[in-house]
């Protein structure tokens, strides 16, 4: 969407990743669900973009489309563009895309236990990258695998490469997963809810590690999450998704200070806070829309306390309100300037 146009402007260097007006539908026998309805965002090298949103808002589907691992069927990309360093991925051959995966872009998953193959040792799985993509010998690859485990701060890495995923604790598994994804030194990392399955203390460690690795390697990172708390510390920019489109995009600080979309507002209010002890926790009423039947007008209007007739009729565009701040709401200007 327009979000990316001006800032690229005259500069000749293409963005690390640019998603533009991406439409994806899931076709099932009963109905067609419009899972993505014009998603647009971009990531530059060395920055972290957090993608926020409820389950079913299309965060993961966007990521899968970028990686090219969307299950087709049922998912079909019907419109849009995904550009990696200016290269149009949707037009690329399957071989080219496979070449990019691992080498240039990698992904880590929510549940590291199921994302690691239970029948192989952790080291073997990391070494596999080096053996098949770099043609290293088994022994060298194992040594590199140990190095990678060391890099993600797994103690006693030389020994632990010989262990199986189930012998690792939750946090260690996620670390191993990170090591595996970063083996070939990609410059784009997509982390799909990397801390959701972990307990709070470990969450912070993993986020710190990801942030540190991103900084060291100058990677661009897309951090998919529904947890505003996790995002606060590491994200440079935040894109909020609702019903398959970006409804607000902003630098992290401004967004926390004053959200420019009622949905973001609702998300912020539903974080439990100590100074509100005893009060009822705010929540966004209603449920996310049925994607096979998205309401007319602004998809958020049935749940929005500001909804007017205009919202019921007209889909708000994602407009730039302040430099770097975008919102898709008819009342965005009011929201952003109100106290």
């Amino acid at each position, binding site marked *: 969407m327009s979000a990316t146009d001006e800032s690229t402007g005259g500069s000749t260097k293409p963005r690390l990743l640019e998603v533009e007006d991406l439409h994806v539908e899931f076709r099932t026998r009963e109905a067609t669900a419009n899972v993505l309805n014009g998603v647009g965002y971009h990531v530059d090298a060395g920055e972290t973009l957090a993608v926020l949103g409820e389950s079913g808002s299309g965060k993961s589907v966007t990521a899968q489309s970028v990686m090219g691992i969307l299950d087709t069927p049922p998912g079909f990309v019907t419109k849009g563009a995904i550009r990696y360093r200016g290269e149009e991925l949707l037009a690329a051959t399957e071989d080219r895309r*496979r*070449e990019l995966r691992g080498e240039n872009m990698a992904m880590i998953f929510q549940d590291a236990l199921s*994302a690691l*193959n239970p029948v192989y040792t952790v080291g073997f799985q990391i070494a596999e990258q080096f053996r098949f993509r770099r043609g290293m010998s088994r022994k060298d690859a194992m040594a590199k695998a140990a190095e990678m485990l060391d890099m993600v701060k797994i*103690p006693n890495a030389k*020994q632990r490469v010989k262990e199986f995923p189930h012998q690792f*604790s939750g946090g260690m598994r996620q670390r191993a997963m990170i090591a595996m994804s970063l083996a070939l030194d990609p410059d784009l990392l997509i982390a799909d809810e990397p801390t959701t399955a972990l307990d709070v203390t470990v969450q912070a460690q993993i986020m710190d590690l990801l942030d540190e690795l991103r900084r060291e390697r100058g990677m661009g990172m897309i951090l998919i999450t529904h947890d505003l708390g996790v995002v606060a510390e590491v994200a440079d920019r935040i894109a909020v998704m609702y019903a398959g489109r970006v409804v607000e995009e902003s630098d992290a600080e401004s967004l926390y200070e004053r959200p420019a979309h009622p949905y973001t507002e609702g998300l912020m209010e539903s974080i439990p806070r100590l100074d509100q002890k005893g009060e009822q926790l705010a929540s966004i009423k209603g449920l996310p829309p049925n994607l096979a039947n998205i309401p007319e007008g602004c998809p958020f209007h049935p749940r929005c306390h500001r909804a007017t007739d205009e919202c019921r009729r007209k889909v708000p565009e994602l407009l730039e309100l302040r430099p770097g701040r975008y919102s898709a709401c008819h009342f965005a200007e009011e929201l952003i300037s109100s106290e």
Partner: protein
Amino acid sequence: MTESIREQADSTDTANTGDQDVSRSGEQKPKLEKQVGLWGDAWRDLRKRPLFIVASIIILLLVVMSAFPWLFTSVDPNEQLLSKARQGPSPEAWFGYDHLGRDVYARVIYGTRSSILVGVLATSLTVVLGSIFGLISGYFGRKTDVLVSRFAEIFLGLPFVLGAIVILSVFNAGITSPSGVRVMSQVVLTIGVLAWPISMRIMRSAAIAAKQQDYVNAAKALGASHSRIIFKHVLPNCIAPVMVYATIALGQMIGLEATLSYLGLGLKAPVVSWGMMISVSQQYIISTPHMLLFPAGFLVITVLAFVMLGDAVRDALDPKQR
């Protein structure tokens, strides 16, 4: 495995647990220094399992028996002493004589070869065929799956005996006394062709479950090709149920060979097999039970040994069981 105890150490998931780790693993380090893969680990584990040891000894004995039957008996299995027909076990003939006065013990020993050969070969053939088709059909799904599954159902729909009669009689039309090797390979192929859909279905359902796992997605996200995903990630996670089936099927295959022999389509004299002995003995079950008991006993022990072996191997291949 010894490593598993170390799992407790990292439950806190902080870097400090490292020191503890080092001290504990330091002692065993020289032993673990060697690089071992999945099978190496499994082997180390197997050597310690009594189940595996017992099963291996039995199977080894059976293999020796089928390779060198003369080591175990000096009696000709086809020598007929009609005067001794259906005599019970005695010191000179441990398992007694059959209805034609042949030494049951010698026949059981000599029958090992064809029974084991048919069992092992037919099982391997069905499992290999079934696994390949099952993997392809389960992993790729959709049209491939429909095609392969319907193809398999054609074979599954054929009644086994009828199918075997058709196949064996067509291929042996006009040949009055085919050679032993020829008949045996025909029996093996017939069983393989008619029985592969069962292991295909097992493999297919396991592959469908495995391909939806995150580690397959993760492998895809790291740029693995279809063939690498199939052989490195899907197959090792699907092999266990097929292996269990194979150990059970082995006994069935030996039984099927007996069925075919009984119908006059399988092995014929002078070749000896347990299946033939069992099928002949059914007319004498009441009067001469030892004619059934000994070959059937050997069959049971053989099947049991393979089942135990399969069980032990499956457990050893599953890293979570260690």
